[in-house]
C-alpha cells in the first residue's frame, strides 16, 4: 500500500506547541516539571517540547536542564523474543525526579508495552510526584490499561498498517505517514 502522509512539518510543530501549552496548563506552570523522552525519537520530541516550554516559562530553563532521556530496553518484556537490542543512554536531569512531575514523551503510542517498561524504569530512578504521558501519535490497539494525557493526533489504524514518524534531526525531514 502506498504511504499516506498524515502530518506535515507544520502540523507536527503545531501539535508540539499545543502539547507544550497543555502540559503547562495541567501542571499550573513549569515548577517541578521534568520531561523524559523515550529513545530514539521520543528524546528528540522531548527536546523540542522542552525548548517550547523554556521559551514560554523562563523558570524552566532554555538549555534543556530539565529534559532527559529514559531508556527502557532493559525493562522490556519481549527481550527474549527478538534479536538483542542495543540500549541507549539514560540521562536524568541533575535535579533528579524525586517529587517532580515527570512527563514521558514518545512518538507513537501503540500496545502500551513500552510505557509499561518506562514506568518500571522510572520506579528504579526515584519516586516522582506524578507521571504523565505525551505522545505525538496515538494509533490505538492498546494491550495494557495505559492512556496518554497529551496527544498530538489520534490516528485510528489497522494492526496491518505501519506508522512511520520521521524527524529532521535523524531522518532529514518532519513527517508522519501511514502505510
Amino acid at each position: 500500500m502506498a504511504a499516506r502522509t498524515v502530518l506535515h512539518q507544520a502540523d507536527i510543530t503545531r501539535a508540539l506547541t499545543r502539547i507544550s501549552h497543555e502540559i503547562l496548563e495541567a501542571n499550573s506552570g513549569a515548577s517541578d516539571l521534568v520531561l523524559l523522552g523515550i529513545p530514539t525519537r521520543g528524546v528528540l520530541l522531548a527536546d523540542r517540547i522542552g525548548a517550547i516550554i523554556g521559551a514560554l516559562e523562563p523558570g524552566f530553563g532554555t538549555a534543556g536542564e530539565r529534559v532527559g532521556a529514559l531508556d527502557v530496553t532493559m525493562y522490556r518484556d519481549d527481550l527474549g523474543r527478538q534479536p538483542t537490542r542495543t540500549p541507549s543512554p539514560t540521562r536524568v536531569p541533575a535535579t533528579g525526579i524525586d517529587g517532580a512531575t515527570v512527563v514521558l514523551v514518545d512518538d507513537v503510542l501503540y500496545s502500551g508495552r513500552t510505557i509499561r517498561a518506562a514506568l518500571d524504569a522510572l520506579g528504579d530512578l526515584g519516586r516522582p510526584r506524578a507521571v504523565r504521558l505525551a505522545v505525538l501519535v496515538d494509533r490505538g490497539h492498546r494491550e495494557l490499561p495505559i492512556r496518554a494525557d497529551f496527544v498530538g493526533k489520534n490516528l485510528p489504524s489497522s494492526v496491518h498498517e505501519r506508522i512511520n514518524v520521521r524527524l529532521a534531526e535523524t531522518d532529514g525531514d518532519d513527517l508522519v505517514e501511514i502505510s
Partner: protein
Amino acid sequence: MRHMLSTRDLDRDAAVGILDIAEDMADVATRAVPKLPTLRGKTVANLFFEDSTRTRLSFEAAAKRLSADVITFSAKGSSVSKGESLKDTAQTIAAMGIDAVVLRHGASGAASVLANSGWIDAAVVNAGDGTHEHPTQALLDAYSIRKRLHGTASRGRDLDGIRVTIVGDILHSRVARSNVTLLTTLGAHVTLVAPATLLPVGVRSWPVAVTHDLDAAIASGADAIMMLRVQSERMNAAYFPSEREYARQWGLDDVRFGRLGPDTMVLHPGPMNRGFEISAAAADSARSVVLDQVTNGVSIRMAVLYLVLAGAMEAKS
C-alpha cells in the same frame, strides 16, 4: 552474540558496542535502585576450576545486578578433586537447568571446547582459559583507558592512536594476549616489555612492538602502562635469576614511576605483588586505575551477560 570466547571474535564496531553498553550499565550503579530486571528467570553458573577473587565476584555481582540467579562452583572442595572431568562437571550443572556458563579453567581452549562440543546448550563466557585468553579483562582494560581519557564523552569512541605499554610476564599472561588483540582492533599501538625468557615464541608476528628495556619504553612515552603479575604458579623453570633482579629491571618502582608522563595511567589486572612488579606508591597514586578496573569490570560483565543472554536464541552453529 551466542558466546564470549575470545577477543579475536570482536571487530572494532562490536568491541565499541560492548564498551558503550557497559557505559549504560555503569550508570545503573548510580541509581536509587542499582538493579535491572533484564535477566530475571535466567540462571548463570560460574564454573571456576582455577582460583580467582575479583573475576568470580565481578561476574557474580554483574549477574545479580541484572536479576539473574547465580550458581557458583569452585573446583576446590568439589568432585573435581575426585577426578570428575570438565565434560561431566559441565553436564551435571547443565542438568540443573542453566542459561549461561562462566568458565575459568587452567587449560587453554577450555571455553571453546565447552562452547563447541555440544555437551551443553548454555551460552559460554570465557573468564580465563590457561595462558590463552581473558576477553572480559581486556574489555574492562580498554573501557578503563577510554573512560580515563575521554570521561563522559567516551561513548562511540575507539582507542585510535593511544599508546599502551604492557610490561611483565607476557608468556603466561592471557590478559596480555587478549589485550594485544583487542587494543589493536580498537586502533591502539601496543608495546610489550619483558625479559626474553617471558616472551612467547612467535611474538614477533604479533601486531606489537617488543623491547626488553623498560626504561627505554618509559622514556619513549605512553598513554597507559599495564603491569602484569609474574605468574609464579605457572612457572616450572627459572625464567629470571631472582625476584630482586626482576624487580630491578622490569618492576615499576618509585623512580620509574616518577619518570612516567604526567598523564600516563597505570593499570594492573590484579592481584598485585606490591614491591615486586609494582611499587605501593605507583599502585595507590591518583594515576593508578587499578580500582577503577575492578568497578568497570562489573559493568563490562553486565554488558557481556546481557549480550549473550537477553536476545532470542540465535541459531546454533
